[in-house]
């Protein structure tokens, strides 16, 4: 296990060093772990995966219109609409947050009743048909996804507003559904990329 003979002649250190040792230790490791490690790692990541490293940004006609990984607020009938968001006034990445409301909190009930009524009216469905994730706020407040069921619920409204066929819209949903090939987590429909695809389709038709 250990060498059986003392390799050093010194007596044991009973004091644990002195101020200059502690200070040198602190500064040295703040530099190694706080500057060298993060700078080297960050540069390497940026070189190997430049698109992801910069925030997986999406561009349209040379203008940045969002990030694949950050949900956006939508309210027009022409768009699919994401989950309720507690981040600022909704989907504000500078004040990311969940609701942090407990199941026993009346505020949660009030918000859920409002969401449920709004969605039922908007999609012209009975509340019992609304997938529950669509009236529950996400943890980050910028969840980019909704469940495939929550997307299906909105197909007829969006198709009608855009004068598209339901099958055409459903196909775009399928194309923008992200799922893990080995079945990890849950499949999610990326609302922003789906809406961008809808815009691209409508734009193509109007020309």
């Amino acid at each position: 296990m250990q060498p059986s003979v003392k390799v050093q002649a010194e007596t044991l250190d009973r004091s644990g060093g002195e101020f200059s040792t502690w200070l040198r230790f602190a500064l040295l490791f703040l530099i190694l772990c706080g500057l060298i490690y993060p700078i080297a790692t960050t540069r390497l990541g940026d070189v190997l995966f430049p698109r992801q490293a910069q925030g997986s940004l999406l561009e349209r006609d040379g203008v940045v219109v969002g990030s694949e990984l950050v949900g956006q607020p939508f309210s027009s009938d022409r768009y699919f609409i994401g989950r309720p968001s507690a981040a600022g006034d909704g989907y504000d990445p500078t004040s990311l947050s969940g609701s942090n409301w407990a199941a026993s909190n009346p505020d949660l009930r009030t918000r859920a009743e409002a969401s449920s009524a709004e969605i039922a009216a908007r999609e012209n469905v009975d509340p019992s048909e609304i997938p529950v994730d669509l009236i529950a706020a996400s943890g980050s407040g910028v969840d980019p996804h909704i469940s495939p069921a929550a997307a299906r619920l909105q197909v007829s409204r969006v198709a009608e507003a855009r004068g598209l066929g339901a099958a055409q819209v459903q196909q775009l949903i399928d194309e923008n559904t992200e799922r893990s090939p080995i079945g990890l987590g849950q499949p999610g429909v990326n609302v922003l990329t789906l809406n961008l695809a809808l815009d691209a389709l409508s734009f193509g038709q109007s020309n």
Partner: protein
Amino acid sequence: MIDVVLIYGLAFLLAWPLGHYMARVFRSERTWLDPILNSLERGLYWLIGINSTQGMTWFGYARALLFSNLLVGVVAYLVFIFQGSLPLNPNGIPGMSWDLALHTAASFITNTNQQHYSGQAQLSYLSQMVGITALQIVTPAAGLAALVAILRGLFGGRYASTATAGEPRDLGNYYVDVTKAITRVLIPMSLVLALLLTWQGVPSTFEGAKTATLVDPQGEVTEQTIPVGPVAAMVAIKQLGTNGGGWYGPNSAVPLENPTPLTNLFESVSIILIPIAIVFMVGYFTRRKRFGMLALGVMTVISVVLAVTVIAAENGSNPTFQGLAAAGPNWEGKETRFGPTPSALWATLTTQTSNGSVNAMHDSFTPVGGMVPMIGMLINETYGGIGVGFVNFLVFLFIAVFIAGLMVGRTPELFGRKLEAKEVKLAAIALLIQPLLILVPTAIALSFPDLTGNSNPGFHGISQVFYEYTSAFANNGSGFEGLGDNTIWWNVTTSANLILARFIPIFAPLAIAGFLAVKRVAPETAGTLRIETPIFAATLVSVIFILTLLNFLPVLVLGPIGEQLVAVPEITASVDQEWVQASRALFGRPQ
């Protein structure tokens, strides 16, 4: 379900060889990184100004750990206060208030990472790196070093065979142990994980926040600011180092911090990987593999029981949504790409291991689902924080050996060394500060409701306050985040709690190990209490549950249990009489 199997499975599969490697590192045996790292480490020792072969007594070791850590904290505190005028601040973030800087430094120097700030808004890139990331590497290394020193002590210290009787023993050199933990374990693993995360979408840049034009402008709001930064480097060590403090406020719930189900797998495995590897390491390091297996068995039983409970609770429905949507699991506070099961599993793993990162909001869990993380933090040793988790386990081992010794009427012994009054008293102190430091401030805060800043009323408000102090004491860092916790009251009281709860539970066992090391070893005989048996394992599990949970049963009844039994049925009474009647029948309450 596949998430659960893969997370536990991969963690065990990787932890086994990693534990073996770590044991070799701390026994100074040859490992594959030697050619690169030996000379680098010699340079570091030269810069610190130490002789790497110089051993330390338990007291010298404790002093080196305490003061080198405190100085790291002081420098971090100064960086937080002055970040406004320091470089690497592209988003122009001002300096922190004194109390928030104090809490942040205390929180990160104790491997807790409780956050009363929101990273993307209140920290410059320099603060995130030097103030946060650096401490996230140094503090788990300090915990690991402390464990290694304690293990050496339990077996007589280094060079036990040539030590003179009664002399203090050599528990190793703190600076060498901590350096090796950083250069040979934490930094290489973090580098690999950070690149995997960036591949999947975690930002890795020094540029400032990005601006996007909204596709569907909302009134006056036409743009979205997307905060980026050197995120991946920090998220990697936050997950691996039982740290938990994320770049963004809602932590790994944010898609930029945890973009896909695959990163969720990597990050979940990383939560428990080193804590489990440490249990394997102990078996190899002490050359008592059966002892390692005893610990692994005890911890895994507790871990799985907690995981099953919280997964079942979160897959049950949130009663608030009854009648408003189709039936489904509790989605409030959870991300679509993960869903209830991986979110629930994360919640229990992160609180068992003193990590404290989250991928869903614990505040919005069902009452029972929210109680499981509290219990994980109260036990705090399955598999526990890096190093300190196993140290906590050893404290319970001392107590269980003592109790078992009393039951069979023999002087309690551990590894041939007698546990006497002095050692048992120290172990008892390490245990008793827990109810003291959690319950007393909880009671004071609840007596003055203006102090607490709750976002939820009633039973859940009690849970929020209790959760905050429990998390501080466990050096966990997760929270029922609705709490308005950036106040002088919260910052100062939790800072005190953090520091005491970090260092007392390290120093008491370190002293015990120092005292045990010098004792004469009695040979094991037929009458010796054998700890590596199923019966002793069952005793140990009972001791852990009884000593931990009995202290806190009253407050758990006032918090999550009361919420489940009373508040939840009341809020749904107007909606769904059938559900209320069913739950009343279940809990036997008369109509």
